[in-house]
């Protein structure tokens, strides 16, 4: 009997916890709608959420929204794969080889802090105004978080573990696959999460380069004529896409790092049993 009760309690608290992250966004949106209805804010400066959503539905019906979203998604994904991949390779090389680190690291650190907006004229001059220009800008944005995290992950693997691997006479390849890579994986996946965030923020900058499609284009185009409904819609889309990619990344972490959770559960269990 008692057992069932605690289970139910657990069930309830689980549900409550699930809705907790959405509490603030939902509250904000409700507050925003109410503020608009009571005309606390000027509708031309901030349209109500319902207006924004109906505007979104209108754009969805004439196909504009899906088209722009899928084009943006393509640019973002291509940029992430190229930039993230390159960042991973560079981070890996620099993490493993001291010479490479000395050669590349300070250059990369210098390039890292250049604002993307400042690079636009150069990108137009070198790569033109086509898709490659937009994708390279996103790639550049994604490169650094991946690089830093991969590099950091690989260099901060517990040296004792490497020592142990060596004493088991693991080959260099095995040492990497069985010890270094799994050890670095949590940090690398953290890099993926950061890169996903940067990906969206860079994309909006990239899509100001003579774009005629994409969410960034939609919003800059709307800005020109102060079409606040579309501007706010684009902001909401970015927020939702950002949340979605973070959700995916977080779950990938859970899936790839299952062993970590199992380990933790085991230590928890052993600790509780010891306490008893």
């Amino acid at each position: 009997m008692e057992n069932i009760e605690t289970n139910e309690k657990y069930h309830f608290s689980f549900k409550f916890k699930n809705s907790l992250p959405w509490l603030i966004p939902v509250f904000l949106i409700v507050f925003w709608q109410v503020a608009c209805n009571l005309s606390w804010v000027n509708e031309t400066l901030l349209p109500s959420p319902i207006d924004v959503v109906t505007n979104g539905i209108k754009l969805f019906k004439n196909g504009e929204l899906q088209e722009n979203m899928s084009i943006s998604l393509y640019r973002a994904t291509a940029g992430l794969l190229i930039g993230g991949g390159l960042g991973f390779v560079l981070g890996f090389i620099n993490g493993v080889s001291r010479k490479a680190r000395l050669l590349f690291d300070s250059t990369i650190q210098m390039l890292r802090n250049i604002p993307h907006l400042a690079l636009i004229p150069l990108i137009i001059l070198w790569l033109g105004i086509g898709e490659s220009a937009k994708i390279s800008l996103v790639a550049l944005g994604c490169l650094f978080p991946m690089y830093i995290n991969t590099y950091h992950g690989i260099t901060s693997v517990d040296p004792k573990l490497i020592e142990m691997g060596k004493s088991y006479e693991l080959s260099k390849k095995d040492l990497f696959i069985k010890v270094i890579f799994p050890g670095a994986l949590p940090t690398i996946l953290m890099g993926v999460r950061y890169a996903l965030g940067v990906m969206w923020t860079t994309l909006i900058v990239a899509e100001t380069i003579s774009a005629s499609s994409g969410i960034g284009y939609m919003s800059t185009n709307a800005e020109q004529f102060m079409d606040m409904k579309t501007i706010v819609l684009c902001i909401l889309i970015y927020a939702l896409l950002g949340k979605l990619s973070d959700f995916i990344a977080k779950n990938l972490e859970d899936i790839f790092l299952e062993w970590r959770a199992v380990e933790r559960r085991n230590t928890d269990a052993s600790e509780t049993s010891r306490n008893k």
Partner: protein
Amino acid sequence: MKNLKKSFIAILLLFWCGVAIYGWHLTREDAGSSSLKNVVLGYQAGDEFYISKIRGQFVKKMKAKGYNVKFKEFQNGAAMLQALASGNVDYARVGDTPPVSALAAGTKLTYVAAGGTKAKGSGILIRKNSSIKTLADLKGKKVAYTKGTSSQYMLLRALKVAGLSNDDITWVNLDSDAASVAYSKGKVDAWANWDPSVAQVEITENSKLLVDGTTTKALNRSFIVSPTTYASKNKTLSKLIIKYTEQDMKWANKNHSKLIKKMSADLKLSKKVVRRSVIRRTFSMHAMSKSVVKEEQEIANVFYDNNILTKKIDVSKHVQYLK
């Protein structure tokens, strides 16, 4: 539970990839056929090339002559001229001021054609209930403008007409979207701007033009410019572009209601705003003439005299008279 989560994430990722591939497919679509010569035209929303684009005849006529036309939209003239300098745009439709700044910065461009003016839709916006009644009242006021655009020239001209010096007002350099917020919030007293934004602000913000281009002689004429080497090699093409654009302009002047309908749907502006901006301008596109070169030279001179440009420019050296 774990497996369910795994497959859910897998489906989500697959969906993501599917949409991204669809997006890639969409960007591929406009890759033209190879037998035609590609011509890239840069435009800004609402201008002459834009009208040719939404009317749709231009592309067909050019295709019949063996050219594959691609329209590229830009948010402002400066970005378009950057793309022009790097050879990514073959013809750019710009206002009267950006090419002067670009020439001073060393961009090798040639004026190929001149369009109509926006004299009646370009000027200094004020609220109808503003304390500013005459140009002289601008003294001590904050006026928004955008550096390097026609608005800077407008403001210089307006001050000259009013007999004020440049230091008599506070110059507030803002991008057009930032200026629009600043103006509607009352952070600036006046705003030098042009259509269709002027028409929109007049209607939504209960405003009017204190002075327009007919008084200030800042006419805000349209030009088509091309990289110098490209222009000298493609005179026949330039003539074709002028001819077909001119045909579209004639259509635009005759078919206001159709044009207004198309533009307001495409730009997502109210018909009232589009109508106001369309009826007060005459669309045209012609080869360059001595009189428009003189107008451009005047801009270059005024900018040089006010230390906005550090180099004296002879506009007539960068013009192609196509006949």
